[in-house]
């Protein structure tokens, strides 16, 4: 009888411990946040008046700079300087094909000050000789929640068998293209990506880092696709609103592209030959 009571007490105690662990496990969550904002970089002082943009003068072919805006400097981001350079190269390779882009300069983040604003961009313009800059900002949040499977892992199943953490990685990369001199935003394009994953607590950190890197890469690809669309829309906008965007084509720009073009004399000769051929054919037909 005494032994049976002891067993019952032991069972209840274990159940209580399990319930407590389950509640604690489910209630525990953590998140990692890495962000760099264009607004924080360009308009750091909320007291100063908002910069009024002028009319941009786009001299083709353009020299374009690409830079990541500096982040807050905190957090354990997988977005290292090398990774940033790789992502910028992806964007640069995509845009080199356009005849109106002469050069694309990849600008290391170290050349941009935190909350540097347009004065910092003016320095970049002088240093690199770029007319237009594409500022890439990012915002990545990783949520980690323990769930019931986590408890199962600790109590019944052996290590590394059942993932015990739910991880969500949400990433947004955003490129904003500015004409530096006029302070005018030309166009912007975002790339948004989400990963829903699982991991054992033992490899949680590694999995989060991998998810982070993958998500940045995928968001960058989507951003490049969006950049293409936005660039096409911007070209139409420039044509429709010549008063808002001035475009100058340099002789250098024109000489880089060649066209097999016909002039009015070619067209006249062709029409004359076509007309004469028809007339002669009709005349030759038996009446």
């Amino acid at each position: 009888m005494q032994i049976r009571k002891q067993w019952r007490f032991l069972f209840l105690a274990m159940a209580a411990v399990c319930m407590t662990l389950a509640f604690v496990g489910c209630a525990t969550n953590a998140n990692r946040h890495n962000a760099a904002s264009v607004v924080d970089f360009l308009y750091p002082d909320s007291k100063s008046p908002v910069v009024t943009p002028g009319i941009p003068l786009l001299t083709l072919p353009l020299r374009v700079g690409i830079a990541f805006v500096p982040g807050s400097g905190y957090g354990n981001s997988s977005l290292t300087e090398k990774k940033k350079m790789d992502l910028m190269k992806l964007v640069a390779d995509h845009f080199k094909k356009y005849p109106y882009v002469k050069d694309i300069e990849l600008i290391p983040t170290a050349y941009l000050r935190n909350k540097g604003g347009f004065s910092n961009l003016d320095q970049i313009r002088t240093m690199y000789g770029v007319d237009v800059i594409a500022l890439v900002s990012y915002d990545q949040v990783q949520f980690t929640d323990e769930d019931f499977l986590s408890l199962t892992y600790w109590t019944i199943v052996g290590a590394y068998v059942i993932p015990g953490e739910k991880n969500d990685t949400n990433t947004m990369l955003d490129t904003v293209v500015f004409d530096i001199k006029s302070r005018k935003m030309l166009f912007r394009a975002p790339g948004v990506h989400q990963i829903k994953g699982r991991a054992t607590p033992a490899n949680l950190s590694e999995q989060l880092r991998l998810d982070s890197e993958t998500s940045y890469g995928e968001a960058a690809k989507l951003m490049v696709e969006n950049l293409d669309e936005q660039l096409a829309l911007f070209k139409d906008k420039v044509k429709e609103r010549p008063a808002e965007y001035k475009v100058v084509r340099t002789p250098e720009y024109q000489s880089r592209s060649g066209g097999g073009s016909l002039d009015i004399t070619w067209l006249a000769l062709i029409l004359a030959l076509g007309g004469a051929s028809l007339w002669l054919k009709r005349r030759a037909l038996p009446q």
Partner: protein
Amino acid sequence: MKTPVVTLLLCGIATVVFFVPALGDAAIYDRDLIQGGEWWRLITGNLVHLSVMHFTYDVIALMVIGAVIELRGDRYLWLVYGLASAVIGLTIYITSPELRFYGGLSGIVSAAVVYLCVDGLREPGSWRWLCGFGLTLIAVKIGIEFAFGQTFLSMTESQPFVPVPVSHLAGACSALFVFVLTRYKRGIRSEFERRAST
């Protein structure tokens, strides 16, 4: 009445390429990408146009001249188009290393005009004289383009590119080659056979 199938097809492709920018990007003659292995751009560059005016002039001209040739019952126009496309791309690649981008059907149009006129020289009557006059005009025209480096179109309207007269010359040479190949191959073959037998 026959339908100028080959010309309609070529103009149709050029129209689709003009209105779908992604296709234009994939097809344009881009020297850097050709050097990177995308050799098809040597041929497909002819299908890309760089402005509305450029596209309109080239496609109207090709429609007219191509239709005339096909309605006259010619069977080798596809060969003129194909060979001219490749020769124009290659010639520009070799002779104009400063040119990164190229696009336009005008080289092929000039090939078609030369092909029609050379063929017309074999016919009797006023058509022969008209074709002879046409050929002379083409020769003078290409000479002027080489001498001054621009066409009348580029002088009257601001175009986002420079004219490339070598494309017209390459097209004309391709047309002559196809004409000799198709019209005189029997004569050449029989001449070889005659010499071999003697």
